[in-house]
């Protein structure tokens, strides 16, 4: 869906240079973008789409790990999706725990779920991973952004071994046992290679 949003800026980009020499790149307010904005925008949008903007200060936490592509690249390359899903989930879950701890909550009870998903996805490569969860409702949601604008959402409840896997733009399957999880894994690998 977003493949058309990867063109470069038409207008000259002004810069702000600080005393340390760091260059910030704002847009000129009268800039016109090509019909489909730049790529960094497109990728960051994936991050920002999942932000809870009014979460009522409840116990929903979210953590993101992602890869930021370069502005010059106009089409995705396989090498950009260089996050190992397992590592990405572990990393995102660590941050998820830290965020929870800062609010005085413990989400350790959800760790076995994250571990299970990390094991399952050990050889899947992704663009970014988002972990969202709720202590009170005892669930963990793991979203994997994969090549070809494929979003995979894994919803797992602590007391329920059932994993619901939604692969948007592709398919929806439910897993209730090991065999189903293996089938999901096979599908993820298939998605990975079919969209690069």
């Amino acid at each position, binding site marked *: 869906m977003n493949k*058309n949003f990867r063109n470069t800026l038409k207008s000259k980009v002004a810069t702000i240079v600080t005393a*340390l020499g*760091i*260059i*910030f790149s704002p847009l000129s307010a009268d*800039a016109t973008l090509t019909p489909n904005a730049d790529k960094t925008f497109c990728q960051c949008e994936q991050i920002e*789409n999942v932000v809870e903007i009014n979460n009522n200060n409840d116990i929903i936490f979210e953590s*993101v790990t992602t890869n*930021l592509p370069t502005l010059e690249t106009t089409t995705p390359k396989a090498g950009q999706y260089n996050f190992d899903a397992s590592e990405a989930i572990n990393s995102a879950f660590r941050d998820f725990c830290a965020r929870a701890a800062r609010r005085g909550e413990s989400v350790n009870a959800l760790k076995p779920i994250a571990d299970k998903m990390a094991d399952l996805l050990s050889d899947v490569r992704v663009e970014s991973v988002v972990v969202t969860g709720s202590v009170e409702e005892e669930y963990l949601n793991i979203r994997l952004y994969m090549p070809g604008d494929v979003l995979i959402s894994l919803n797992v409840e602590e007391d329920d071994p059932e994993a619901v896997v939604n692969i948007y733009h592709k398919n929806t399957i439910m897993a209730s046992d090991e065999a189903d999880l293996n089938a999901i894994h096979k599908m993820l690998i298939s998605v990975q290679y079919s969209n690069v």
Partner: protein
Amino acid sequence: MPLPFGNPEPHALKQTFLKDVTIVVRYDSVCDVCQSDELTKFANDRFNLDIFKDWQGQEEVVMSSDNLVKFSFLENEVKIRLRFPNYKRFDDILKFLPLALEFLSLRKADCVTEIAVVKYNEINYTLPNERLSAKDAMKDLFNDELLKDDDIFDMSDDDFKNLSRWEKKLDFSDDENHNLEVFIVCGFAINPETPNRGALILKPSVSYKCKDMPLVNLHDELKKLNTIAFQAFHWSIRQEIFSKLLE
């Protein structure tokens, strides 16, 4: 507690970090039928948009084919997002408010329970040498007050990779503002392939919980929230950087 931002009036900036603006309207509905075909037709007829429908998670989405205008519909929520460069001023997004009102009408809702304005800024940065890091970029751009009380700078360099985000909730508990919440999210993303370049993210969100706000007030109330969102942005970045945006 009063708003800590001072009262700067919204400026017309010559440069901007703003990438998109979202209006959120929440409501109680007695009707659970979305009737998105009618909404699509309404959007098409009224705004002359080349649009298509999609599902993103649990949201039903109607968006322009260039992705600059997007409407999202959830069970008790409607969102309108407008991207730069279509967004130049808040009135640009308010033009699409009739679609939200049409949606509320289809859902038989005659008042709203919460409204919010979210302004998403993305700031690309380049470091001049490898002795500097994203931490330095954050310190150079963001106000000390925004960064204090967080553990951003306690993280090791190993943890300070890829993307992280911090959220600051400003709580207003006096009588006047007891329904007002301001969240400021800041963070960064680093490209592992070009570690001297990355992007900082700054996203002020202002929400107002209201009991049965009449729809007729929506326009003006959203404008008030937008002013606060601007003030939050103004407060979040260093004054010298803001001055540069005016030049």
